[in-house]
């Protein structure tokens, strides 16, 4: 509130100064206090610590079998694909896919038998049923999304392929989920 002097000119007063200074301090303070409130909603240290890598022994997984494991509380499918399933996944016309990705970009080199994908539908997170749907990959019972034997979306409302968690082969029969292999997988050429 600028005072008007006898000459009619406005002049900054101490009240103007107080208004701006208080307002600025209040605005900065309010913004600063919002941060911890929001950040506290994020995964806490316990949850992050529980996300340590998990080892999965592949030896007992029979041909064609899908096993479910958890990493960071998220479901992961480990699928021992049959030669027929691998062949079907590889011979697909990529241009026809909603989220084009060659099968080779979704498995580790030389390990095409093993498909490791997150087990929640990319639509709204339900667990798709294995060996079901048109392509006998997965079928989501919630809203009808269809995945092929490479975990790629082929129909329904899901926008993306089942994502691949970071994992690495520690031996021929053991993978470690949560740790990326040193050798990067083949570039995901579209």
């Amino acid at each position: 509130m600028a005072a008007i002097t006898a000459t009619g000119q406005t002049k900054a007063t101490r009240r103007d100064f107080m208004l701006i200074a208080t307002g600025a301090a209040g605005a900065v303070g309010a913004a600063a206090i919002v941060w911890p409130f929001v950040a506290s909603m994020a995964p806490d240290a316990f949850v992050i610590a529980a996300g340590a890598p998990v080892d999965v022994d592949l030896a007992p997984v029979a041909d064609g079998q899908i096993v479910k494991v958890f990493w960071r509380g998220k479901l992961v499918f480990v699928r021992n694909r049959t030669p027929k399933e691998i062949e079907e996944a590889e011979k697909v016309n990529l241009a026809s896919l909603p989220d084009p990705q060659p099968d080779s970009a979704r498995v580790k080199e030389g390990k095409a038998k093993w498909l490791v994908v997150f087990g929640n539908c990319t639509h709204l997170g339900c667990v798709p049923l294995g060996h079901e749907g048109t392509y006998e990959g997965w079928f989501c019972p919630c809203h009808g999304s269809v995945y092929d034997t490479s975990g790629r979306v082929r129909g329904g409302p899901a926008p993306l392929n089942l994502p691949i968690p970071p994992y690495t082969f520690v031996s021929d029969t053991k993978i470690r989920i949560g740790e990326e292999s040193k050798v990067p997988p083949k570039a995901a050429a579209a």
Partner: protein
Amino acid sequence: MSQHATTYVPKSRFAKWFESRLPLAGLVHSSFIAFPVPRNLTYFWTFGAILIFMLAAQIVTGVWLAMHYVPQSNLAFESVEAIMREVNYGWLLRYLHANGASMFFIAVYIHIFRGLYYGSYKAPREILWLLGVIIFLLMMATAFMGYVLPWGQMSFWGATVITNLFSAIPLVGDTIVSLLWGGYSVGNPTLNRFFALHYLLPFMIAGVVVLHIWALHVVGQNNPTGVPIKSGKDAIPFTPYATIKDMFATIVFVMFFAWWVFFVPNYLGHADNYVPANPAVTPAHIVPEWYFLPFYAILRAIPDKLGGVIAMVGAIVMLALVPWLDTSRVRSANYRPLYRQFFWAFCAVCVLLGWLGSKPPEGGYVIAARVCTAWYFIHFLLILPLLGLFETPKPLPASILETVTGRRGGSAMPVGAAAAPSTKG
């Protein structure tokens, strides 16, 4: 016929002493005793009172349940079972609370559709209507989070599906979902925060209800003719007329409520929710509670993730925009022959969407859901704006009194007492 002074006059010395320090009795008197009520209100106007009762009932039963419930993912399911089996009358508290949510939504849907039929959203009641939409949104959030708390299969997967809706938001979606979950999937942190919010939101609803009633008492109630109160003879005092009628309707509604609680307490729930949450298996057929089914059907009707979420949110946004989408100056559908038919068609579409939402997303159900979803939006975006331009309304009555008595005259509130609805809070 009982007559009240139109303003509160404290009689005892204490009342005078108190009133001069806090005019609470005067506020109650002007709001709930002398407040002028259109004399032609039907029982459709009792649902406001029924809803206040249901909110109070949900808060009371909820607070009592919270004394026994444990919001921890390893204990939540068992604590609910303990409430059912071990806690004295725990089964009653839980069935009252679970069925109470459904009763709350039955009442609110009647309340909303009554508003849509009689044009209660039109000037000067836009703010009143918008506050109602906010209450509806808060109710949906509260009901959703409450359903998660028993931590059964439907709780878990309902929480997963609904929180994943936010992942459809471009760029920040995944961050928002992570903040909702407090983890990398729905888990204990999610359950904890949902419990905290489920406890908080009803009190926020109560706050908005106060604003809703305040706005109502500024602009006055609509009525079946849509014609405003023009003289005192159009109105009767809130007490005893509306008070008794509201109480009677509430008691009848409570009987209806009790029938569900005592005879079919699980009919509106899902058997799957008596199976403890299992993050490795989704129930074969996952559906939300009945009151969300129309919106769920709209979500699934769109074969695109973001598009589905936008359509579902848009379905509620339509309600918020309705005061400006409806171009007709006539409020009540009783005097709008075309709108009246479209209104009932719209009701049928909403019920049909609800039914479709409960069906699996395949074949003819999907096609029907798409047709109904299209009609839902056509109703708001095309029919409501165009009807106001093309429809010829029937002649409106000169006054509320004329429709009630067929003549002028009669006795009700002293003339002038209710010439204008109270502008006091």
